């Protein structure tokens, strides 16, 4: 009852015309990022953070969340129409989606994908509503040692799952932590690693680092022939699926929601795992499994529902525990922190109005996506016809403006360039970038909780193992890191996932 009231208040706050507009713009920009094959969701969200820095916190976060789940849908469009996934999570949709395009059913595929995304996203958000209160109350149990242990689990999961080499993943994580330490020590106030530069007292700007490492380095690592071929206008005979197609999609959507929601809750899992597993589930359980691969609607409905359920469910650990489940969410968390909001158990006690407004906007945003995407399919594909030289020039323009406006100084532009080169080197050495983003955001929180814990125990490190919750969490972290020794295998799909 209480929850319902707060949610309704949240809706009232989210339905001001400014916030509706922010949600709409976020969906629009997110879809564009999803459509463009060059920029992934991580760089895309980071690139747009500077635009929101001067907005009020609610509007800014509403817009960035909308961008985030908008990308999960945008990738579908190119998968279906062009056989090129706009982002990794939609890769599996190409199989049946493009097959449907070839037999003239592209419209039906896109509509089902949009409806599936809406269903998955909305149900996952309902899960967030249900989980918010109880988990928020558990929050008081989470003292500094437990908080530290929670973050250890999140990071070890990502390290264990990312890339091919755990050594390289740990290096990436350590680099992120080191970068986060530049500036005034958050506890004792001593300047660290500032090399005497006053500019660095405030730390290295998070946005400049992310835009450099993810955005610029991506652009720098293009090679000849990477650009997709020119695009032909798709044949959209009808947008409406037949009754039979609706019937066939429903069970696939239900399965997709379950898979996406479950996996979205686990830190370190990315959307592609959900969509792949969902496709696998269709292959096993669907009544029309023999048609999969030849343009079966289940092959679109399942993975696309799973993908969006995952994206929205991944917000649950962020909102309730302050743990980002994936690199994109880590960037989103960075935006929260920049707005002076600390995601986690205290969010609902100290900023409950903003928190509920954001949750309400998730419902609204999912609806906007549904209404926005299908009619505008033509517009999205036309973006792909912009020549890559123009697109790259415009992306560079945006990066420079974005980096400059953080502090109104060219210093951050240089920071961005430097980190672009670092990102290029890391890509070249095959070092995964995801752990770095995560630790970059979590670094200050981790360090603070570590030092507070040690103050509580007066220097005794056993505080992490003598308290039950943190002991279990630390044990879990160790288990994850040493899982290769225990012959626990990570899903193969993760190796191919560029987001990790």
């Amino acid at each position, binding site marked *: 009852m209480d929850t319902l009231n707060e949610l309704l208040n949240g809706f009232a706050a989210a339905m001001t*015309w*400014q916030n509706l*507009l*922010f949600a709409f*713009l976020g969906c*629009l*920009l997110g879809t564009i990022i999803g459509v463009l094959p060059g920029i992934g969701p991580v760089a895309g969200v980071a690139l747009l953070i500077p*635009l*929101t*820095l*001067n*907005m*009020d916190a609610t*509007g800014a976060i509403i817009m960035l969340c909308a961008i985030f789940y908008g990308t999960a849908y945008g990738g579908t469009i190119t998968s279906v129409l062009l056989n090129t996934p706009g982002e990794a999570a939609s890769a599996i949709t190409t199989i049946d989606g493009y097959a449907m395009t070839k037999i003239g059913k592209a419209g039906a595929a896109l509509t089902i994908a949009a409806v599936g995304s809406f269903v998955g996203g909305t149900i996952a958000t309902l899960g967030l509503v249900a989980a918010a209160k109880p988990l928020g109350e558990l*929050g*008081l*149990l*989470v*003292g*500094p040692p437990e908080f530290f242990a929670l973050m250890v689990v999140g990071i070890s999961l990502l390290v264990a799952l990312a890339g091919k080499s755990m050594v390289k993943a740990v290096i990436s994580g350590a680099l992120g932590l080191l970068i986060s330490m530049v*500036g*005034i*020590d*958050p*506890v*004792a*106030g*001593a*300047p660290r690693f500032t090399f005497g530069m*006053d500019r660095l*007292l*405030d730390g290295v700007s998070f946005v400049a680092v992310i835009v450099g490492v993810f955005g610029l380095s991506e652009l720098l690592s293009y090679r000849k022939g990477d650009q997709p071929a020119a695009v032909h*206008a798709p044949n959209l005979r009808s947008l409406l699926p037949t009754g039979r197609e609706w019937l066939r999609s429903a069970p696939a959507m239900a399965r997709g929601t379950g898979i996406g929601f479950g996996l979205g809750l686990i830190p370190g899992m990315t959307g592609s795992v959900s969509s792949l597993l969902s496709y696998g589930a269709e292959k096993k359980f669907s009544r029309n499994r023999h048609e999969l691969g030849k343009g079966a609607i289940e092959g679109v409905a399942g993975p696309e529902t799973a993908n969006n359920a995952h994206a929205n469910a991944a917000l649950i650990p962020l909102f309730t525990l302050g743990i980002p489940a994936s690199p994109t969410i880590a960037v989103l968390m960075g935006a929260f922190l920049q707005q*002076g*909001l*600390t995601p986690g158990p*205290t969010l609902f*006690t*100290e*900023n409950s109005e903003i928190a509920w407004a954001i949750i309400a906007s998730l419902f609204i945003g999912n609806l906007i996506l549904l209404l926005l995407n299908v009619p505008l399919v*033509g*517009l999205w*594909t*036309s*973006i792909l*016809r912009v020549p890559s030289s123009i697109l790259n020039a415009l992306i560079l323009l945006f990066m420079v403006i974005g980096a400059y*406006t953080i*502090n*109104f100084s060219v210093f951050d532009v240089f920071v961005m360039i430097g980190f672009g080169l670092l990102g290029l080197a890391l890509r070249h050495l095959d070092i995964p970038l995801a752990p770095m983003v995560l630790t970059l955001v979590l670094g*200050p929180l981790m360090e*603070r909780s570590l*030092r*507070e814990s040690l*103050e*509580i125990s*007066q220097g005794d490190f056993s505080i992490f193992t003598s308290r039950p919750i943190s002991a279990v969490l630390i044990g879990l972290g160790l288990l994850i890191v040493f899982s290769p020794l225990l012959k626990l295998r990570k899903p193969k799909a993760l190796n191919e996932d560029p987001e990790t």
Partner: protein
Amino acid sequence: MKTRMRLAAALAAASLIGLTGCGANPGATGAAGAAGSDFPKKGKSIDLIVAFGSGGAVDTAARLIQPVLEKELGTNVEVINKPGAGGQIGYTQLTSAKPDGYTIGATGSPSVVVSPLDPSRGAKYTRESFQPLGRQVIDPTVIAVQPDSPYQTLKELLDAAKANPKSMTASTTGLQTGEHFALAQIQEETGSEFAPVHFSEGASQATTAFLGKHVEVLVANVSDVNDLSKQGKARVLGVMSGERAPSLPDVPTFKESGYDMTAGTARGYSAPAGLPDDVAKKLEAAIQKAIEDPAVVKKMQDLGLQTSYLNGADYQAFWAGQEGDFKKVLPLVQKKD
């Protein structure tokens, strides 16, 4: 194909205009020459930097005066939390902003007074980097224990902490903040010894940890424990002011319990030094109006706080006096090699 491109362009333009119209607010550092008699420029918002996390007393007070300030100045005022290092991160940001009036901040002593005094903190500002605009309140320090704690009086608690040094953890809101000073003073005068835990993001973080029973003793200000005490979530044992706090009439002062000590946090608002005179005057007047606004005073009272306004010049003198006082006790809270 052409129409599509045109449509895309039109949509992009429309969204930009939309973004514009709904008042994405301007940054703190604006074009040169913005400050002047036309201050504040319409549609250009003023950032109010709070150097502690949201939910603490500093933050609450800033959010209380914000609407009145907006009305007085005729433009948006955004409260921005920049917690960390016991206030130093926010103060650094405040003093390095352009002195054009579009960035002001909440300043609390002793944290703002002390951080430049300790060379090991490497603070980039001094007292001269701030232009005080007005003082709002003095918030006395209190000491509280868990409601199920065996200690009923201040004396019992301090005696126990003397008999078993460092057996109890006590919160502060960061190294060398008011709470840390108060705790150090108590230890110095009574011979008791606690294990301090420094919650460097401020009072909200410290009280959350106390509520979760992660620390045993809460050292905080009257406004932080007002609600907790009423809800029975904390037992306040003593208040470090000359008189009992009106909101906590049953809690004895330290002097009544036999310890002649006072401590507290003084809070006000400042700008980076070097404001043009007319801008400073406008801001000072608006801040006075906001602090003395009857509704704000009433709400401060509900938090347990007596408003005690001082204008910019007097606040500056008060600040300078505090600097002298704290210099003497600084060694108590400095690291020893």
